[in-house]
């Protein structure tokens, strides 16, 4: 999801941990896709989609529709920021934040070529073959990642703060549920656990993860894969490693028992 590409392009990947996350991230994903004009991926799994659960009402009042730099009707001449020096509409105009005004077909004056080939500011593919144009468009697209960082949902924190915790847990996706359950079981035993759920996996929230890890005494990553995908991101972007890991990759979700046992073992050894 993060690396699959034909050439480099910006994207957002978000991993819901439960139904409420899925509901909230779904409408946020649509908004982000419009605001950033780039693909947004919701990383679900079977545990999330194949289970039934009764849940309280979602907070429907929180839902907003954000279309970003979007012109759906009228005349593009009324949007000077979308035009080049000669008054021509530029679908791929070079902008500071990397996002250009998107005019729907049907908007007066908005001739454009939406192009899967590299292209210039108008969309012409032949011009996109020029080295300077290619680099400028590539850099423009990638600037969206900086904007994305300001818009995407931050990691979610549970339990006690990492400074006060005996053990601090880093997870993403549906590991959230069984992990929270394990934490609840540990509470009566006097074990204090901090947990950070990485909600937006890409762009990776390096700063937040780094301060979480640096504040923690003992760190554990629990993740549902063989190779340590989250751990790899932590190493790459935070230049840190965790003290312990727990993986599950037999096609089944974690059980709370499994996480409870691991945390108990970590604390006993600490």
């Amino acid at each position: 999801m993060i690396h699959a590409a034909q050439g480099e392009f910006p994207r957002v990947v978000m991993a819901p941990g439960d139904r409420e996350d899925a509901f909230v991230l779904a409408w946020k994903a649509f908004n982000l896709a419009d605001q950033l004009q780039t693909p947004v991926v919701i990383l679900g799994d079977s545990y999330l989609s194949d289970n039934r659960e009764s849940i309280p009402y979602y907070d429907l009042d929180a839902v907003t529709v954000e279309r970003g730099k979007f012109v759906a009707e009228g005349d593009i001449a009324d949007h000077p920021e979308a035009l080049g020096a000669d008054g021509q509409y530029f679908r791929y105009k070079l902008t500071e934040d990397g996002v250009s005004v998107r005019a729907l077909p049907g908007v007066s004056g908005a001739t454009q070529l939406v192009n899967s080939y590299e292209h210039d500011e108008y969309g012409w593919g032949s011009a996109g073959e020029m080295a300077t144009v290619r680099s400028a468009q590539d850099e423009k697209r990638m600037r969206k990642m900086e904007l994305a960082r300001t818009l995407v949902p931050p990691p979610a924190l549970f339990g006690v703060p990492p400074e006060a915790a005996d053990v601090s847990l880093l997870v993403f996706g549906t590991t959230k549920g069984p992990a929270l359950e394990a934490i609840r079981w540990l509470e009566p035993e006097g074990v204090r656990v901090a947990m950070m759920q990485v909600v937006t996996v890409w762009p990776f929230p390096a700063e937040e993860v780094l301060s979480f890890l640096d504040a923690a005494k003992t760190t554990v990553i629990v993740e549902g894969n063989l190779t340590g995908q989250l751990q790899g991101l932590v190493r790459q972007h935070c230049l840190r490693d965790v003290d312990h890991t727990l993986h599950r990759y037999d096609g089944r979700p974690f059980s709370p028992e499994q996480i409870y046992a691991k945390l108990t073992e970590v604390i006993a050894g600490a």
Partner: protein
Amino acid sequence: MPEVSEVTRALKPTWCPGCGNFNMQKALSEVLSESGMRFEEYVMVWGIGCHGNGADFYRSQGFHGLHGRALPVATGIALTNPQLKVIVEMGDGDGYGIGGNHFIHSVRRNVNMTAIFHNNQIYGLTTGQASPTSDQFMKTPSTPGGVVEEPVNPVGVAVAQGATFVARGFAGDVPHLKELYEQALAHEGFAIVDVFQPCVTWNKINTFKWYRERAYKLEETPDYDPTSRTKAFELSMSTFHDLTCAPEECRIPIGVFYREEKSFTYQDGLPQLDRPLWQHAQQPRDIRSILEKF
């Protein structure tokens, strides 16, 4: 009304001199200009290939996407804003090979749009490999021993699948091609125009001369009846001929094979298309009443 010089670009197309694509562009740009449609009233969508490079030679609201995927994109556009006229340009490799699945289902759906196929019976852009419409036993760089399989019969497939407008043109006859384009654009439903477009560089068999010696106009035949599906299907069988057939042995019909005046289009089946879809998505919808059932 936009002039021909406005719907095309003042840029010399990169097609090989003599390529059939030039006449196809001439025919379409003249029809677009004469139609009086304003730029905001139509959208053009291209596949990938020499035909698709045409995206750079028109000035329109255009979309140049992935190889073989022009039809799904065009369908999306047509179903997003029913007020737009959608024109798709594809190749034979593009539209009948990698995009063949979309072709069949677009015919089934009868989406209101026009699909033009630049059929040169070869992969032009990638230097002359056999395409789905290359004749059996044709030798190409990818089939040094000759094409093993029978060609796709686009007209026959479309007619069999319930198409509501199927025509075939020839890039060597611009006035006739213009007539076909005009009828296709006026058709309510999925209009197909398969155009023989000689690739002068890679296809040394199906040349302008080859088609000229074999093509005849359906409209000029005595018992012409474009409302008969079985007749159209029968005529489409001209696809299957010997690679080296003499002109009198393989007569190839061009013109409108089949048309259905009043058909149920995909758009007709979607009441939400009373307005462009973006107008539905301006505010979050209140779904509380749906949730309350649970």
